[in-house]
């Protein structure tokens, strides 16, 4: 006759936390005192249905058990004994967790049926009930109380899905204003929802756009309290339901479209996430993904820059500026840049800028006209202070592409301003050039290829700790930086 043993208890922890331990079939040697050592055979994962754990007990007995069913929806795990030095026959056990909704605790039911040799029924039922189940309840409580479950996930063990919140640092904006409004604080990031990927971020790109948001120019895009940041790179911690394109452990990067990257852990929609080639480091990806894709559509789609195009680039020694100079030079363009210091002029020249104008008061039009007879394409991140000079610097049929307004909001450009020289004015947003997954992937691949084959030279990257976001903003705003900036987490 089959014996049945059932034991149940209440654990003072949220269901997600208890399940994160119990769903891992090979976790019992970490929390159950009767288990000495355990391993999963054939190098399978501990949540692979069908996997086998081979373990020894402290009393010397040895057992092999197979995972028969695992259900993340009803929080149920079923397993059986394959071989054992204890005489439990046809042993099948089920662990079920249920939520205690009015106190955020967990109901845990552990049940099994098995046969025994004649006369051993009582002894074995007692053993299973007390030494395995009841002792297990106490041992897991102790494991959770000590926080041992939170210290998992070291480099050598493959990261398992942990359906629980993890600690994060984030830089929060509680009011708009000067760089000093940027303050780091502790945060918790919930498990990824369906379609999401939770990323342990290593590097976060800093863009001039972040400064506009910080100043409160676009409160609709960044309501308070808010977190800045449009791009980052790191490693996938875990994925939500229905995500198959990336796996835990993959190195990835992403761009927006909503701010929130200034943090160490973030969940983002899986369809925004790009797997990184091995050759592209996290900080390079975070520093250059948004700027590189911007350079790609500016030169290729919008500016149609080819051999002989006279291209004028403002802030030529910035992150975007150096990418544009270097890429445009490879395309055969005649590149003229403006910068704010002789040191930056030297860097811009190194990256392919043919002629550099050093100016701190945004006077450059007559020099541009003298050098090349006017610009066919102008890539402008300066905004209003350079408005009149921009018009004057453009050649007949020139194209002014406004991608930023570092000096202040650009006053509206009237069609009558354009008619004198048959000018074109564009005000693009990067997200319209990566609106489909295919476009995003194509542009990113073109960028990584261009960086690896030398078509584009990698700009210098200045690194700041996440805690020093304030300093990074100050320096970027005061035009003290060269190349791209990242925050490291």
């Amino acid at each position: 006759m089959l014996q049945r043993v059932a034991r149940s208890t209440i654990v003072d922890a949220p269901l997600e936390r208890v399940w994160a331990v119990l769903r891992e079939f090979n976790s019992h040697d970490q929390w159950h005192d009767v288990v000495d050592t355990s391993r999963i055979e054939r190098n399978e994962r501990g949540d692979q249905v069908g996997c086998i754990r081979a373990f020894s007990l402290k009393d010397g007995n040895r057992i092999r058990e197979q995972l028969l069913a695992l259900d993340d929806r009803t929080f149920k795990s079923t397993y059986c004994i394959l071989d054992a030095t204890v005489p439990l026959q046809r042993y099948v056990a089920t662990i079920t967790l249920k939520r205690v909704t009015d106190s955020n605790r967990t109901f845990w039911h552990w049940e099994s049926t098995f046969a025994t040799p004649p006369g051993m029924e009582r002894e074995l039922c007692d053993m299973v009930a007390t030494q395995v189940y009841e002792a297990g309840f106490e041992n897991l409580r102790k494991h959770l109380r000590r926080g041992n479950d939170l210290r998992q996930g070291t480099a050598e063990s493959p990261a398992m899905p942990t359906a629980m919140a993890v600690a994060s640092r984030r830089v929060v904006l509680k009011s708009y204003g000067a760089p000093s409004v940027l303050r780091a604080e502790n945060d918790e990031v919930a498990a990824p929802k369906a379609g999401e990927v939770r990323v342990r971020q290593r590097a976060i790109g800093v863009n001039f756009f972040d400064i506009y948001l910080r100043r409160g120019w676009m409160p609709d895009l960044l309501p308070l309290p808010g977190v800045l940041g449009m791009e980052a790179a790191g490693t996938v911690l875990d994925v939500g339901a229905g995500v198959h394109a990336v796996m835990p452990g993959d190195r990835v990067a992403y761009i927006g479209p909503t701010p929130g990257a200034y943090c160490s852990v973030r969940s983002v929609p899986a369809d925004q996430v790009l797997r990184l080639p091995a050759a592209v480091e996290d900080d390079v990806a975070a520093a250059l993904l948004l700027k590189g894709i911007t350079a790609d559509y500016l030169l290729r789609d919008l500016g149609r820059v080819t051999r002989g195009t006279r291209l004028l680039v403002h802030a030529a020694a910035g992150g975007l500026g150096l990418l544009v100079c270097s890429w445009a030079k490879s395309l055969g363009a005649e590149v003229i840049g403006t910068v704010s210091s002789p040191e930056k002029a030297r860097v811009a020249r190194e990256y392919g800028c043919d002629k550099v104008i050093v100016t701190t008061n945004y006077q450059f039009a007559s020099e541009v006209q003298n050098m090349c007879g006017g610009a066919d394409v102008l890539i402008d991140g300066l905004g209003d202070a350079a408005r009149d000079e921009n018009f004057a610097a453009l050649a007949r049929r020139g194209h002014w592409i406004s991608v930023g307004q570092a000096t202040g909001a650009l006053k509206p450009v009237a069609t009558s301003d354009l008619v004198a020289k048959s000018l074109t004015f564009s005000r693009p947003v990067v997200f319209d050039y990566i609106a489909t997954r295919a476009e995003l992937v194509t542009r990113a691949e073109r960028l990584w290829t261009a960086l690896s084959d030398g078509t584009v030279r990698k700009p210098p990257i200045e690194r700041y700790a996440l805690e020093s976001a304030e300093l990074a903003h100050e320096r970027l705003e005061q035009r003290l930086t060269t190349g791209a900036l990242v925050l490291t987490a």
Partner: protein
Amino acid sequence: MVRVYVSSVVDTSADNVWSRIRDFNALPQWHPTIADSRIENSDASDRVGCIRHMHTRDGGMIRERLLALSDYDYQCVYEIIESPMGVANYIATLKLTPITDGQRCFAEWSAEFDCAEGRERELTELIGNGVFQGGMDALKRHFARR
């Protein structure tokens, strides 16, 4: 389909709680929002298929049919035939499970139903917090006093 689920721990045996809630006509004795109850057609209150006809304390009329009763699983399932809540295809389950360590039991009360679009949150709140949690709290208070 909207689903509401509430669960709690009552500090007495499942047998004790079951003896208080098993009677399909006994809701006024243990649930604070129900004023009166009778079983239609003079049926026995543990006859599967019987209908309880109740009034809430604020005067609303509710008719519910017993669909399943299990003394083995400590479980009862019922549906709403008529109520002022504006729900359709409403089926609820009330279930107890013994907790083997200590004199206590795990109580679950859940329902599935359809409703007009936009009312999901309001009804989830009313049923989950008002009806189900209200009942759980009353049971916990009752058995704590003993």
